[in-house]
């Protein structure tokens, strides 16, 4: 089963990358940009029968390794694909 994890800098936490990308996009003429956050996107193939089981494992993986809860928020989707 495929798990997609979306990790973003936590609200209120400095996101220097996002700022730099926002600036660069504006330089390129995309003036309609109001805000940019840059995070990570992790795609996992998980062998597992039940979606519920995979969901539970995914949550644990996020908490234990994939995201840094001090400075990042995460969410994930469990799909078939």
């Amino acid at each position: 089963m495929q798990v997609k994890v979306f990790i973003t800098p936590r609200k209120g936490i400095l996101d220097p990358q996002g700022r730099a990308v926002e600036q660069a996009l504006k330089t390129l003429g995309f003036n309609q940009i109001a805000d940019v956050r840059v995070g990570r996107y992790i795609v996992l193939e998980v062998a597992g029968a039940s979606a519920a089981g995979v969901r539970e494992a995914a949550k644990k993986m996020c908490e234990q390794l994939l995201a840094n809860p001090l400075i990042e928020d995460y969410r994930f989707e469990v799909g078939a694909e």
Partner: protein
Amino acid sequence: MKWGVVSFPGSLDDRDTLYALREVMGQDAIPLWHKDESLGGARCIVLPGGFSYGDYLRCGAIARCSPIMRSVVRFANDGGLVMGICNGFQILCEAHLLPGALTRNRSLSFICEQVTVRVANAHTAFTRSARKGALLRLPIKHGEGLYTAFDDELSAIEERGQVLLRYVAPDGSARDEANPNGSINAIAGVANERFNVFGLMPHPEHAIEPRLGGDDGLAIFRSIIESAA
């Protein structure tokens, strides 16, 4: 001869490159500013190492959008000599002046150490004062120096002799442990098809004084001086 060294926000080795050119090699070298478009009449443009724009997003991706890069691209397309060192190499790849791309070292960590590279093609403006097969001791210091190119492109690059430098062991043998970052075919430096644009991960500007770790980097700068003469 006259050199231009570009400073982007976050460039680090720009000052060192100017020092190497002016104080050690007695060259006429001028700093160029990323917000300008003028190349100041320089015969060779150097894009120095560093972390332009913090290397945020992808190394070199933001820098290549700077005003000065428009001129650098034009200059290169007109046949002018351009050399990108480390971050400069990354910028040249992002600007499509060089083939391929540079990504995270296979160790995933930054590596600062002396490496040995073999001159794989000595018939270019950047390597002519070295002999083919010559070994150079040069420092590297980067986190994203793994060179990749796709199969077709890679074989074309190899066939045309665009690979100018390759990582080897100190005794010159090709060994996987001698490839510090996992670059494909141990590529340390590559030129464009016209051989007027060159990118390399090792830092020749930090190998110009025997007291400070050797002077093998002079071979690269001397080649360019000879070519422009």
